[in-house]
């Protein structure tokens, strides 16, 4: 009995194994093909940015050579960008605007969410429904009146016009609220008995326990704010306060287009955000995933 069992099973096992191997190989081929699709524009951009010869970039664009760094390789295009415009200034503007919006936002949004999630007080229910209702209003729907308002108070062409209106964000409050409400209430009660004030509870107990949600909100806000285009396009005029996305677009729309320089510019914008992404990759994925748990 036992011996026949083995003889019957063995060839089946082998064929199963080869079948499995084939499916694994096919799987990898598919995965690699899709990876090529997602990577080719980015690789093309980097490779073109280090080709010093503009005519070579144009000549190479129609074939596989577009992806091969050969010929006159160097960083001449990068120097050109720095020579033609205050790239450092644009980079500083973007970093300053995004980081101050996100960091101030972390404090203010988490504080109101803490009050709503952990303290029972009159008006709490109303504020919660108000904030959930406000999530629906897209920035695009209010940019025109907002432009009218900031124009009246003379904020056009400044840092604050790109920071202050976006610090408090209803969706960020909601994410904090959802996280805080899941923490055990006994934590607060124990601290209360020890005589801790609400601010102490927030700062010493809630914040240290809530690193994941702080990371989530910071990353999501960074992703959204870093690419902001419509509003800065409306409120910045000169070089002084212009953030990167608007600066690239204006450089790109000048004729004649020098593609080597354009790609050097876009590469310098892309490299820092790709590095940040690769460093905090797991956190990025987690943040995006938790933005979907809603409703």
């Amino acid at each position, binding site marked *: 009995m036992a011996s026949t069992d083995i003889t019957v099973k063995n060839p089946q096992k082998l064929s199963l194994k080869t079948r499995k191997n084939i499916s694994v190989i096919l799987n*990898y081929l598919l*995965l690699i093909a*899709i*990876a090529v*699709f*997602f*990577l080719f*524009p*980015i690789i*093309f*951009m980097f490779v073109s940015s280090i080709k010093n010869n503009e005519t070579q970039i144009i000549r190479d664009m*129609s*074939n596989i050579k*577009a992806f091969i760094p050969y010929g006159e390789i160097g960083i001449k295009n990068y120097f050109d960008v720095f020579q033609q415009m205050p790239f450092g200034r644009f980079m500083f503007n973007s970093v300053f605007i995004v980081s101050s919006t996100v960091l101030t936002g972390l404090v*203010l949004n988490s*504080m*109101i969410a*803490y*009050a709503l999630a952990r303290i029972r007080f009159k008006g709490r229910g109303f504020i919660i429904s108000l*904030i959930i209702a*406000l999530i*629906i209003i897209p920035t*695009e*729907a*209010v940019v*025109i*009146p907002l432009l*009218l308002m900031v124009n009246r108070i003379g904020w056009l062409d400044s840092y604050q016009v790109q920071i*202050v209106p*976006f610090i*408090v964000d209803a969706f960020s*409050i909601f994410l904090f609220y959802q996280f805080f409400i899941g923490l055990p209430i006994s934590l607060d009660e124990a601290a*209360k008995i020890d005589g801790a*004030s*609400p601010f102490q509870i*927030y700062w010493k107990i809630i914040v240290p326990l809530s690193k994941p949600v702080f990371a989530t909100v910071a990353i999501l806000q960074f*992703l959204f704010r*870093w*690419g902001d285009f*419509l509003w800065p*396009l*409306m409120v910045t005029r000169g070089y002084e306060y212009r953030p990167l*996305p608007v600066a*690239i677009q204006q450089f*790109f729309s000048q004729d004649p287009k020098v*593609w080597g320089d*354009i*790609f050097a510019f876009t590469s310098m*914008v892309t490299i820092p*955000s790709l590095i*940040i*992404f*690769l460093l905090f*990759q797991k956190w990025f*994925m987690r943040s*995006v*995933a938790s933005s*979907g*748990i809603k*409703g």
Partner: protein
Amino acid sequence: MISESAISNTKSLKKKGSSLQKRETFAAWSFCALPLLFLFIFLITPFIVAFVISFTDQRLISNPNLPTQFVVFRNFLRLFNSSSFHQALWNNILFVLVVVPLQTFLALLLAVLVNQKLRFINLFRTIYFSPVVTTMVVVAIVWYFLYNPGEGLINQLISFLSFGKLGPYNWLNDTSLVLPAIMILSIWQGVGFQMVIYLAGLQGIPYELYEAGRVDGANSWQQFWRITIPQLRNTTIFVIISTTILAFKLFTQVWVMTRGGPQGASKTIIVLLYQEGFTMLRVGYASAIGVLFFLIVLCVSIFQRIYLKEERAVV
């Protein structure tokens, strides 16, 4: 003895409680005050102002000789009769009809692929997600070059795959091709985001369901349709709704690549809003566009809430 001390204990706690409550209420409001003030100034006020000035002929720089007038529904009537608004609305709807199903399907497909237990699978997840962290303006510029009418890489690829029978196309200058061209790069940039949301959804499905399915003799295809898809219902609703809203917000890539052209073939609601409000300085008219845009987003969001509620009632 024990009960007495317990009573006095609760009494003192209650006394302590009321003063504590006052302190807590004060603290709560001081936590809420500043954020609520910001929301009031920068979101609620402009939102109300949008409704108010959409009924006026307000201009960005007001002319002292021509005071702003209340025009009732004139902006809305003009909007409903304007062919460029029809065109923009239709472009957005077309974009939604094509991109939302396609992107949702692709995101699910990618999520299933990268949910396998294979070596280097994290590398593939990272690669598929990397366009999401690439700024949209950069994406639009790179694809502008790839879509180059004559010798562009995309044209060459199509010509190569069709043995020279198809193309070359004038992607961004052809009224019938410009929108599909923008759709492709939008999906390329955005699908990684939804993939990650689906991935989280897939990993949240209890393993026992699949085991039970296997015991009942379901093959992997049946397991996918009978277990995976129904379990991902809420995730799918979320992905569809958020992609729809994003599709109505379409602006950046269009502005960088075509500014709504050729002949308005890629004009969207937000492009129109920008042109009317910022270029033409017709703030009242642009606000009317903003109000309609909000109503569209509101309808889409209400759909989401209805469907999600239904789900809760079932469970």
